[in-house]
């Protein structure tokens, strides 16, 4: 009974923390972008502008929930639900700290990859169901981008799996006791970062929503809380990718002095800050550049990484 209660409290706690952090991230991101652009960012509602989140939430909920008459209604409504569900489901396998985490799957890494791939459906369906040329273009771009970056995202992690000898995320963290994998797996780390940014559709690779050319890309027709779900989904995705980067390459909860939970949160926050810095500084590449970069640079790099890691692991064992 107490075990069940513990599991439930874990689930609810993680859900609550992820949701509130995703909401908080909209404020953090705007503040940080402001700071890096010599401005202040939202600082008027409440202390340090913290209540801006509440104001935004009220605004989103109070807006008209509009489904365009030309849209494919079922899919239109379904699309934002999918992204929120997949992003949150992937959180189930994230090992936050010893004893904190929803499930301890022995194929945790594969589960994460599967869930992040399923998230593409949301965007493609949303773009298609909107029946709008900009949405459709955004959906196409998302499909192509996610598929090509998914390929080497999975491959870039195989080096980590080889070194740790397990798909279980807790085992992977435990294997980094002596040395974080960002050093022996530097190539894997770089390629995973790039793939992660593309997966989360963050700024250098946000071609699916490219405001300047596609209005808002796949969510052009969305309003109110449906847009809110896309929004939350994106931020949850950012947190997820950051948490996975911390887990796989920066030793998860490992660290001296501070309690494991603090270490995990601290590292995740630093990675999120890095993501926001990317948004503040880098321009968006052209679409063909993005595809060429993925297939011609990143995929060969991951393959080289895979070969070298495999050879070293083999030589080490024999």
């Amino acid at each position, binding site marked *: 009974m107490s075990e069940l209660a513990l599991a439930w409290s874990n689930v609810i706690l993680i859900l609550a923390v992820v949701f509130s952090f995703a909401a908080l991230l909209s404020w953090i991101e705007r503040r940080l972008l402001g*700071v*890096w*652009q*010599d*401005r*202040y960012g939202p600082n008027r509602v409440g202390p340090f502008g913290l209540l801006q989140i509440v104001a935004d939430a009220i605004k989103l909920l109070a807006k008209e929930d509009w489904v365009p008459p030309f849209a494919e209604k079922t899919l239109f409504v379904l699309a934002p639900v999918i992204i929120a569900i997949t992003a949150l489901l992937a959180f189930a396998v994230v090992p936050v700290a010893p004893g904190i985490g929803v499930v301890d799957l022995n194929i945790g890494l594969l589960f994460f990859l599967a869930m992040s791939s399923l998230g593409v459906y949301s965007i493609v369906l949303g773009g298609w169901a909107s029946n709008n040329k900009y949405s459709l273009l955004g959906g196409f771009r998302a499909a192509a981008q996610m598929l090509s970056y998914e390929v080497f995202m999975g491959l870039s992690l195989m080096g980590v799996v080889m070194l740790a000898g397990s798909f279980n995320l807790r085992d992977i963290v435990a294997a980094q006791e002596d040395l974080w994998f960002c050093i022996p797996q530097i190539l894997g780390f770089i390629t995973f970062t790039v793939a992660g940014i593309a997966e989360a559709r963050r700024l250098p690779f946000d071609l699916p929503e490219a405001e300047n050319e596609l209005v808002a890309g796949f969510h052009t027709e969305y309003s109110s809380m449906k847009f809110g779900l896309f929004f939350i989904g994106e931020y949850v995705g950012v947190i997820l990718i950051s948490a996975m980067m911390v887990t796989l390459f920066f030793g998860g909860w490992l660290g001296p002095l501070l309690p494991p939970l603090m270490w995990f949160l601290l590292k995740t926050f630093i990675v999120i800050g890095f993501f926001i*810095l*990317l948004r*503040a*500084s*880098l321009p968006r590449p052209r679409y063909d550049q993005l595809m060429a970069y993925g297939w011609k640079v990143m995929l060969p790099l991951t393959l080289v990484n895979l070969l070298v890691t495999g050879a070293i692991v083999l030589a080490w064992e024999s």
Partner: protein
Amino acid sequence: MWNSLKTMWTIFLHMFRRRVTIQYPDEKPVIPPRWRGRIILSRDPDGEERCVACYLCAAACPVDCIALQATEDEYGRRYPSFFRINFSRCIFCGYCEEACPTDAIQLTPDFEMGEYDRKNLVYEKEDLLIDGTGKYPGYNFYRMAGLAIKGKDKGDAEDEAPPVDLHRLLP
């Protein structure tokens, strides 16, 4: 790649720069005196209205936001019987000020004209007219013009010779 990292580092260092934001309601911005803001009608140094209701401002206005009606007092001095500026249309281009021959209409550095009701943005003459002379303190049109008005006959204006009597035969 190296370029991108350098860019990111530069942007990161901007964290420690001075903010350029002026936190407006708490901290007022410095407005230059030639700022084109709320439009006023000024008075001449004698305290009379400068406007002679010539309609040039209304003609110059590209958005037709100025409406007025000319009239005369019993001594022949022209003035507008009403003068109305619809600030919900006004684009603050300042053409009215350029067109005005008597320096009556002027733009001021005030820009805080927010209203909840659109109708409140229609300013009548009593809203527009100020007590002072605005930007041009010394100028007094009727003291220079040759027109006879109350308190000043023909020939009494500044730098004006008395009128010639056309019926006199002497040179």
